[in-house]
């Protein structure tokens, strides 16, 4: 008796499928084999893990209240300024990187700037900027601005490349100047999505601001790093909960504003 079998969609050839599975398991064995674990250390650490979960459930907001407050405050101010400056700078870079409205040399320059910014981790950029500009929020601000330009510039360029050409031609045929064409034909087409993406980037910048503090670039990361290093898991839990709440609030707010814009 033949029974029906669900067809395979992705790799219809059976031999290829078997080969892929074998390759996958081989990698898994070799990969897992190369993990060196000190089980003694893990066993000792489990008690700390339990304390962390306990600390996360009973966060202590008071012991490091002053540090937490100033850290969150610094993170937020850093996030606002870097997002705004990043957006302002990403507009020329994004326009320059759109193939349909800019000349070739400018296009290549902006594209490569964006590519470099996107492939560099924020933390690595922060290490260098801290070395150049000294510890503190200013280095963090520059890091986040730089990352924002790469992120929004690329998306803005893609958005401009996909616009409806007719509107641009219609406006151009009235004899509008370059600035007028950008303002009246292109801006309204890309604005709704850009506003949404800007809020999304605000969200990312806040999350990243918690990380770059670890390498000395200001913000809540420094507080978090100290409390984890001192095994004060209840304070660390408090910081993590604040981060989660602020990210959730940002998400809620951006959803609301996007609805209001469209």
């Amino acid at each position, binding site marked *: 008796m033949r029974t029906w079998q*669900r067809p395979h*969609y*992705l790799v219809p050839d059976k031999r290829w499928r078997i080969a892929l599975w074998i390759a996958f398991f081989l*990698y*898994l064995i070799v*990969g*897992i084999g*190369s*993990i*060196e*674990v*000190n089980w003694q*250390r*893990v066993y000792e*650490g*489990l008690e*700390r*893990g339990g304390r*962390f979960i306990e600390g996360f459930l009973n966060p202590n907001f008071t012991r490091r209240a002053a540090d937490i407050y100033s850290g969150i405050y*610094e993170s*937020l*101010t*850093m996030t*606002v*300024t870097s997002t*705004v400056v990043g957006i302002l700078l990403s507009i020329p870079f994004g326009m320059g990187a759109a193939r349909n409205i800019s000349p070739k040399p400018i296009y290549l320059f902006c594209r490569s700037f964006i590519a470099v910014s996107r*492939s*560099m*981790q924020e*933390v*690595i950029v922060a*290490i*260098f900027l801290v*070395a*150049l*500009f*000294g510890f*503190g*929020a*200013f280095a963090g*601000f520059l890091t986040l601005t730089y990352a924002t330009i790469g992120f929004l510039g690329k998306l803005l360029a893609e958005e401009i490349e996909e616009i409806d050409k007719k509107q641009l031609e219609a406006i151009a045929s009235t004899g509008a100047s370059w600035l007028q064409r950008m303002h009246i034909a292109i801006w309204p087409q890309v604005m709704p999505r850009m506003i949404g993406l800007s809020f999304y980037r605000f969200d990312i910048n806040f*999350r*990243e601001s*918690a*990380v770059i503090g*670890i*390498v000395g670039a200001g913000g809540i*990361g420094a507080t*978090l*790093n100290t409390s*984890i*290093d001192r*095994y004060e898991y209840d304070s*660390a839990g408090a910081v*993590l909960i604040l*981060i*989660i709440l602020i*990210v*959730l609030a940002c*998400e809620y707010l951006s959803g609301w504003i996007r609805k209001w814009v469209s």
Partner: protein
Amino acid sequence: MGELEQKLVWESHTRRKAWTVWGFWFSIVLLTVFCWLEMTEDTIWFFVYDAPVQAADLIDRMFPPEWLYINKLYKALWDTLNIATLGTLLGVILAFPVAFLAARNTTPSTKFVRPIALFIIASSRSINSLIWALLLVTILGPGILAGIIAIGLRSIGFVAKLLYESIEEINSTSVEAIESTGASRFQTIAYAIIPQILPAFLSITIFRWDINIRESTILGLVGAGGIGLFLSSSLNVLAWPQVTLIILVILATVVVSEYISARVRSLLI
């Protein structure tokens, strides 16, 4: 005549809307200026003005890169690759059930289970893998296991969010068709839902793998293994030519993984 001329000028908004828009922009400017003043309060401007000189000095020390150092990096690169790949696998395995619990059309209860699943997604998304690694290194000790778990925990939110959105968008006709044969809940998922979301699922996984390669290169800074460990030790002894080489290696890895991910995803869609 003057009045007529005024009316003929075209405006893209009504008066009221124009004021609202203006108010919106004005409050953003105010907020930015305020934040800028607060943020730069403790900035030592001398360091900022001095930065170009420092930059020139740094670049001078960074070049040429110490090419021979690469022989020490192969093992670290392999570790980085493992952290990213095994971490992605761990994240995907954990994210799969979470996505089904979070999607409106497959969750067992919208009132109780769905909010919990959404909270798991939100917390995993809010906390960067470097922070998870920082925590796990104090718990499990330094090494790539902490890195793998950190990457896994961070991936849950990303994968589950995209996956549950694609589960919510599936075509419900085939689900109803399978259900009408008397299939159980798991059979419905296996025969009606999974075939529909499989391409999206694989493409999300590859996409996350690419991001994870990028993130796993820096986890070593907090002791969680991989090439970041070498970056951190070279930085500590100010061996700038080694730092340059490591950063070049990281950039190359990122570019290659992005290329692979783009190729595989274009094959899937």
